[in-house]
Every structure is written in C-alpha cells, then in structure tokens.
C-alpha cells in the first residue's frame, strides 16, 4: 500500500493537535459527562427544573448576554478610537485594554464591589439617584463587562486596521456621507470580527466566577449565578449535583456557541472577504 506523504508534515501536526485537544479539552469534559450520567435521568431533570437552578441559569445567561452586547458596542468604539484617531498616550491606552486579562478576577471583583457598593465612590452617587449596582444583577453585568472588554477590542482592532482605506474613499466618491459610509460599508466589513469578539466575551461571561461573586451579593433567585451554585454544591460534598449542573451548563453553552459559529460561517459564505 502506498502511503501518502505530506511534505509539510500534516500527519505529525494533526496528530499532535488531536492528542492535545483530547488531553486538555475532551478528557476532562467527557469525565464530567460520565460522572453526571451516574444519578440517572430523573434526578438530573429534578435538579435542572428546581426553581433555584432555573433562576440561576436565567441570571447567568442574561447577564452574560447583556455584558457581551455592551462590550460589542463599547469594545467596537474602543477599537475604533485606538485605530482611527491619533491620540497622545495611545500606547498606554492600548496596554490598558489588556489589563482585565492579566488581573486576578477576584481582585477585579473586590475593586468593583468597593467602588459600586452603596458606600463606595460611585455606588454612593448612584444610590442617591436610586440605581443600586452592587449586590444586584446590574453588578454582575458590570463585572462581566469589565472581564469581557479585551475580547471584542482585540478581535476588532486588527481587522479594522486592515480595512482598505480605498473602500471608504470609494463610497465617498460615489456620494456616500460619513454615516452612510459607516453603515453601508465599514460596519458590514467588521461585523464578522465583532461577532467573534462578542461570542468570546459571552462564553467567558458564562463561566466567570471570581469577579462576579464579590459584587453579585449572591442572593438566590436574584443574583446567584450557576458557577456559584456549582461551588455551593461542591462545598456540601454534593459532587453529583455539581456535575449535573456543570453538564447542563456545558450543553447549553456548547449549543449557543455552535449556533453563533454557524451564523458566522453563513456570513463568511455570504460575504467572502
């Protein structure tokens, strides 16, 4: 039998990639799945449909979604400013964007909680006009916005940098004003990148734990997130309950991410750049 030889070492790199993905991603995840199958479907369903769990899922998904949407807009704006405007100290601003990546999430959570608690600098001002942030779902959104910002900025920035200036000039020469150019030409070119950043920020927001628990107040049915619920189960030595939750979280997250990826694939088929 004749073996196909790949000159660029495809078989080697493919082998390493599959082994690595298997070891680092698939193995732990499949153990979770196996473990979660132990209690049987009834208990599983019982855990999932308990009101407190449902509420936690709601809080988790809606806050992650809201934060990702805020980041979609503000991160886009930040990338725009960083790329398009000549600012003094731009390099410093650019480096600041990465800080949420580097900072231990607990530090971020504690800092935000201190700032936005009813006695904090900003929190006291907001409390005066009747907008409590800390210890409410808004606090969760705030923490997740902080955590997710770099994802959108860092995916949009390089694409924006690579946008052919001729595109906007061509639009202008055809009679398009600034806004028309932005809506009809620039934004559609950047949408796939914004969507990628949004997805990453959303995924990160779903799983985020450290920064949220300090500012969320963690009140059941109001501001309790699923990762916290999992930890709570674990602290009570309820491993089965924890893995069941993890399993559901995994399935829902995977479905959502798959959906967004399919959407992206569809868009890049429609707009082959």
């Amino acid at each position, binding site marked *: 039998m004749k073996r196909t030889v790949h000159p660029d070492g495809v078989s080697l790199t493919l082998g390493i990639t599959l082994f690595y993905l298997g070891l680092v991603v698939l193995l732990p995840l499949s153990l979770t799945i196996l473990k979660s199958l132990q209690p049987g479907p009834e208990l599983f369903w019982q855990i999932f449909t308990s009101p407190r769990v449902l509420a936690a899922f709601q809080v988790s998904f809606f806050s992650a979604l809201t934060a990702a949407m805020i980041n979609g807009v503000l991160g886009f704006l930040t990338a725009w400013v960083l790329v398009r405007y000549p600012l003094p100290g731009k390099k410093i601003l650019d480096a600041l964007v990465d800080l949420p990546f580097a900072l231990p999430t607990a530090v971020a959570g504690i800092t935000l909680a201190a700032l936005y608690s009813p006695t904090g600098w900003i929190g006291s001002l907001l409390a005066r006009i009747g907008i409590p942030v800390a210890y409410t779902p808004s606090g969760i959104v705030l923490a997740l916005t902080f955590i997710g910002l770099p994802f959108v900025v860092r995916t949009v920035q390089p694409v924006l940098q690579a946008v*052919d200036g*001729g*595109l906007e*000039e*061509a*639009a*202008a*020469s*055809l*009679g*398009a*004003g600034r806004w*028309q150019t932005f809506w*009809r*030409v620039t934004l*559609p*070119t950047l949408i796939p990148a914004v969507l990628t950043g949004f997805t990453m920020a959303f995924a990160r927001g779903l799983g985020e734990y450290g920064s949220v628990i300090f500012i969320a107040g963690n009140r059941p049915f109001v501001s309790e997130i699923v990762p916290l619920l999992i930890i709570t189960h674990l602290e009570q030595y309820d491993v089965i309950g924890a893995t069941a939750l993890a399993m559901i979280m995994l399935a829902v997250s995977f479905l959502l991410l798959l959906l967004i990826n399919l959407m992206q694939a569809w868009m890049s088929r*429609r*707009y*082959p*750049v």
Partner: protein
Amino acid sequence: MRIEVQGAIKQFGQYRALDQLDLHIPAGEMVAILGPSGCGKTTLLRIIAGLESLDHGMLCFDGVEATHTPVQERRVGFVFQHYALFGHMTIFENVAFGLRLKPRKQRPAESVIRKRVLDLLAMVQLEPVASRYPAQLSGGQRQRIAFARALAAEPRLLLLDEPFGALDARVRHDLRQWLRQMHALVPVTTLFVTHDQTEAVEVAERVVVMKQGRIEQIGTMDELHANPASPFVADFMGGANLFHGRMENGTTRIGEILLESAPFQASVADAASCSPVICIRSHDWQLGRQPNGQRTWHTVVRHLRPSGAVVRLGLESLQGAGSIDVELTREQYDKHRFQPGETVFALPTQVRIFTDAPKGSVVPN
C-alpha cells in the same frame, strides 16, 4: 468637464507633493499623468477627486471654483488600483451603490436602477456575474466592475489611480484597449495616473509628465518623444542615452569626444563654461565598421538582444563616454551582423544638448 488647477501646493510633513502646480485639462479628453513614484501624481488625482485638500491654490471645474467642494458633491468616478469593491455586496449591489445613495427625491425607481446596472454590466461584458461577490472574480473582472460602479451615477469626471497596476501583463494590455473603447463610447473627461509610459502611449491622447510636484511637460506621446523639454522627460520616456558633458569656450565634449554643435554655441554664447546633459535617442545612431568622419564614436559591442523587429545593442565607448544603448531595425542589423566584442564606429544622427536653461535645442548633425 474642463479642469483647471492653479498654483496648487500640497505638503505632507517634509515632503512637498505638489509645488506651485498649474494644469488645464480640456473637456472630454483622455489624459495620462505620468511620472516616477513620489512625483505627486497620485496626490494631484486625489486632490481633483476631493479625497485630499489643497494647502494653497485653486481648483475649478468648468470655470466654477471647486477647491472646497466635498468629494460627495463633485460627481467624480474614482477607480482605485486595488479595486476597492465592497466585499459584502453582490456585483449588482456594488454597481447600484451610487444610485441607491441618492436622496429619495432624486433616486431613480428600482426598475430604472436595475436597467441601468444591467446595461453597465453588459457594457463591461460581465452581465452573468451580477449575483456573485467580488471575491469570486478575477482581478481584471473586478477592475471592470469598479469602472462600471464609477460610471453608474454618471460622473462628470473619471479618475483612475494606476488602474492596471495590480494586473498581469496580458490582462493589462486587454484592459487598456478596452478602456480606449469605453472612452469612445462614454466620452467623459478621464484622467489616469501611471508610472508606465507604455500604458500612457496605449491609452491616452495627451500625457502630463510630472517630476517633484511640478509639471515637466505636457503633450502627445509623439511630441514628448520628438521634443522632450528636459533630460528627465527624455530619460523617462525611455529609449534615450544621456551623457554628462563639459562645455568650454563654446565647444562641448563628452569624455574625449568633441561635439560640433555650431547653432547651439550661439544660443549660450554668454556661458563660458557649464555642464550640459547630452541626449541621443537609441534609434538615432548609424553603426559601421569604418569610421565615418571625425564625429564617429569608437565603441565596442558588449551585448546583443534581438527582440522581434528590432535588435538592441549595448555598446561601450572607448573614449570615456560610458555605455550606449542602440536600437537597430532588423534590416539595418542584418547588413552588418555585429558580434559581441567587436569594435564598432557609431555616428549619432541627432544630438540634443540641455544646459541649465529649461529648453534644449536641437542640433542637426
């Protein structure tokens, strides 16, 4: 549309892209702006389009000042070197873009837009690709779509920035022919920038040669070849040998070669000595194996490049004038069949001497 540029100055930091430039383009002409990179030709085009603004000077369209008119209101079609098609729109939508942008009152009905776009696509012979995306087209096809898009809103002026620069030689040649036909069909004033003089020859009626932010000469290609205003133009048009000479007491020398140029001496009688540039075109030579009078140059053949109807010879002067490119017709060459290494006597039939004065004078030899 008639274009006038007066006293145009444009500065980018230390670099002066346009330096007191004046230009007049009559309506309906196809004009090439030719020059080496960095001469300001693209800046001039972008200023006429309104994509760049002037630091000083004035721009008029049909006698009406347009220096500060925004690009959107100038009604110019601009074609970019890298096409700049909108990747997220179909070919049809790309061409329709300018029409769809018009304010509601002026916007043609959908059926009118549709007809106009399909007509334009038919004109560029790309009707079948209307529903495809730019990424699915070849470079030459994309550039034709860019033309159609620029023409859709009926511009008063068509500006092309190195439109064929990113295409391969064969496609480039076809598109140049095609562009000429287009211009005959749609006689809108057209300006195109190029650094390739063969492109200018093939497409333009008139050529504007630029150098360092100024216009060096304007004319038909024939005029520029026959009567270059400066050594720069002669050199840039190609096919010319430039020599640095010495002028003393009314005689001009290149190395040990003495140029007798009586009519010329009179015109610069007051210049006792200067360093002129001597230009002899590569087809203005007679070659022979015997010296032909005192003015023949002693040379040796270095290399030989037969290419179709002409044979190019690289000669080297034995009198310190450097290397000389000579172009013989096949017929002339076949008479002698010079070989590399052979000593050859070369007689220039027309010599042009440029002093610092702006105009060179022709010396019948």
